[in-house]
C-alpha cells in the first residue's frame, strides 16, 4: 500500500516536472504564433482573427530578399564547412605526420570556444586590412559573410566527424589496404559511407549555425548582403513587429514538419 502511494507520488512529480518544463519551452513560441493571426498593428492587443500579417510578410521584399540571401549563404557555407570538416576529422584520426600537429588541433577546435563577437570583430578588421593591402575582398558583402560562416562552422563539423571516425574500427580500412585497395578507393568506398550519417548531421548543424547567426554577419556584411537575422533584428531591436510574428509562425511550421518527417523516417527505418 505504502509502496503504491510512493509510486503514485513519484509519477505525479514526474508529470508535474515535465508539464512545467515543456510549458516553459513552448509557451512563448505558441503565444507568438497565436498573436500572428491578430488583426491589429499593436501586437498584443487582440482585435480579431486574420491572415493580414502573412499577406504583408509575403509582400515585404526586404524580408523575402534577406530570406533568399540567408538560404544561399547557409547552404554554401554548410557545404564548404562539411568538406573541410571531413578533411580535418580524417587528418586528425588517420594521418600521423601533420606538421605542427598541436597547432592544427588548436586551430580546428578553438573557434568552438571563441565568443562570436570577437570572431566577428577579428574577421572584419582582417577583411578591411586585406582590402587595404591586396585589394581583396573588394567590398564587404555576401562573400565575406560566407567566408566567416565557413570559418566558424568548420570546427563544429570537424568535432562531429572526428568523434565518429575515432569510434569505428580502423581494422576495416587496414584490411582493405592489405588487400591492395588504393588509398583513394578506401576513403570513397569504406570511410565515406560509414561516416555518412555524421556528414549529414554536420551539414545540418552548419546550415542552422549560418542561418541563425546575427553577430558575425552584422560585422562582416556590406551593402546588398542583409541576411534574415540582420533584417529581423533591425525590425525588433526597438519595438515589436507583427510581420515578424508571422515569420516566426512559418519558421516554427517548417521546423515541426522537418522534425515529424525525421521521426517517421527513423521509425520506418527501425521497423525494417
Amino acid at each position: 500500500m505504502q509502496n503504491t502511494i510512493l509510486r503514485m507520488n513519484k509519477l505525479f512529480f514526474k508529470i508535474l516536472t515535465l508539464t512545467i518544463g515543456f510549458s516553459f519551452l513552448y509557451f512563448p513560441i505558441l503565444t507568438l504564433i497565436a498573436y500572428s493571426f491578430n488583426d491589429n498593428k499593436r501586437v498584443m492587443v487582440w482585435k480579431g482573427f486574420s491572415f493580414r500579417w502573412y499577406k504583408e510578410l509575403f509582400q515585404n521584399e526586404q524580408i523575402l530578399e534577406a530570406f533568399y540571401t540567408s538560404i544561399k549563404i547557409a547552404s554554401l557555407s554548410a557545404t564548404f564547412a562539411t568538406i573541410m570538416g571531413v578533411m580535418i576529422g580524417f587528418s586528425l584520426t588517420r594521418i600521423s605526420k601533420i606538421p605542427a600537429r598541436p597547432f592544427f588541433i588548436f586551430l580546428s577546435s578553438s573557434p568552438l570556444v571563441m565568443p562570436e563577437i570577437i570572431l566577428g570583430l577579428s574577421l572584419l578588421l582582417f577583411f578591411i586590412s586585406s582590402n587595404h593591402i591586396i585589394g581583396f575582398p573588394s567590398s564587404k558583402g555576401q562573400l565575406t559573410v560566407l567566408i566567416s560562416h565557413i570559418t566558424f562552422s568548420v570546427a563544429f563539423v570537424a568535432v562531429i566527424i572526428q568523434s565518429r571516425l575515432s569510434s569505428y574500427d580502423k581494422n576495416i580500412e587496414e584490411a582493405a589496404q592489405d588487400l591492395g585497395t588504393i588509398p583513394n578507393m578506401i576513403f570513397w568506398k569504406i570511410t565515406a559511407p560509414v561516416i555518412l550519417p555524421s556528414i549529414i548531421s554536420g551539414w545540418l548543424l552548419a546550415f542552422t549555425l549560418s542561418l541563425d547567426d546575427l553577430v558575425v554577419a552584422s560585422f562582416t556584411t556590406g551593402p546588398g548582403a542583409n541576411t534574415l537575422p540582420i533584417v529581423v533584428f533591425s525590425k525588433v531591436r526597438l519595438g515589436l513587429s507583427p510581420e515578424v510574428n508571422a515569420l516566426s509562425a512559418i519558421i516554427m511550421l517548417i521546423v515541426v514538419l522537418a522534425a515529424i518527417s525525421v521521426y517517421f523516417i527513423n521509425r520506418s527505418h527501425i521497423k525494417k
Partner: protein
Amino acid sequence: MIRYLKKQNFWFVFTPYFWLVLFFFIPLALIFKISISVSEWGMPPYRDLFSLSEEGFKIDSTLSNYLFIFSDPFYIRSYLNSLSLAFTSTILCLLIGYPIAFYVAKSQANIRIILLVLLIIPFWTSFLLRVYAWKVLLQGSGIINSILIHLGFITEPISMLHNHYAVILGVVYTYLPFMILPLYGYLVKFDLNLIDAANDLGAKPINTFLKVILPLSLPGIIAGSMLVFIPVVGEFVIPEMLGGSDKLYFGKIIWDEFFVNRDWPVASALAMSGIVILVFPIVIFQLMYAKYNFKNE
C-alpha cells in the same frame, strides 16, 4: 611539408590548415596587433605598428589601450557582469534542465522519442525569434501583465523588460535546450537497475542521487555547462533586446566601442582581454578535465 605527407593526404591536411590560418589565426593576430597600436584620426583609425621612413625603422606600440581598460571600472564591471550572467544562467539551466532531462530519459521508449522531438524543436527554431518571443510576452501590454492584472495581483502593468532579470530569463530560456540535450545523452545510457540496486540496499533516495546518479552524469553536466557558459559570456543579442541600462555586458561594450565610438584599438584590446580572461580558463579547465578522464580510464 610535402616531404612528410603522401600526395593524396596532402590536400586533406593542407586545405583546412590553410583556411584556418588565413581566416582564423591571422585575424586574431591582427586584433592583437591593433590592440597595441596608437589610436589616430583617419582611416584606418590607428597608426601603423611598424613604419619605415627617412629616420629609419620605427616600432610604434603602446600598452595604453590595456591600461585604459583596466583603469576604468566601467570596463571591469562589464567583464564581471558577463561572468556573473554566464555563471547564474548556467546554474539555473542546470537546475531546471536536469529534472527534465532525467524524466525524459527515464520515460518509456515510445513516449521518450516524442518528448525528445519536442526538446529538439525549440533547439532548431531561430534563436533570435525565441528571444523576441519574450520581448512580446514581457511588454507592458503583454500577456503576463494581463494575466497578473486579471488575477488581481497588480492593478497597473509593471515594467518587466529592460532590466537584468529579463536578460537572465531570456538567456535561461534560449540556452536551456543546450543544457538538456547533452544531459539527456548521458542519462539515457544510464542503467536504471543501479537505482533499484541502491534502493534495495537501503540507500535513501537523496544518497542514491548524490552517490550514484550524479557522479555518472557528471560528463553530461560538464558538457551542458560548457555549451551554456561559453556563448553566454560573449552574448550580445539578448542583453540588447531584453536588457536595459542597469547592467552592461562585455559583448555590448565591444560592439559600441567599435560601431559607435569607432575606437578600433580599444575594441581590439577589449577583445584580447576577453580571450585571456574568459576563454583561457575554459581551455585550461578542458585540458585538465581531459587529463583527469584519461587517468581514470
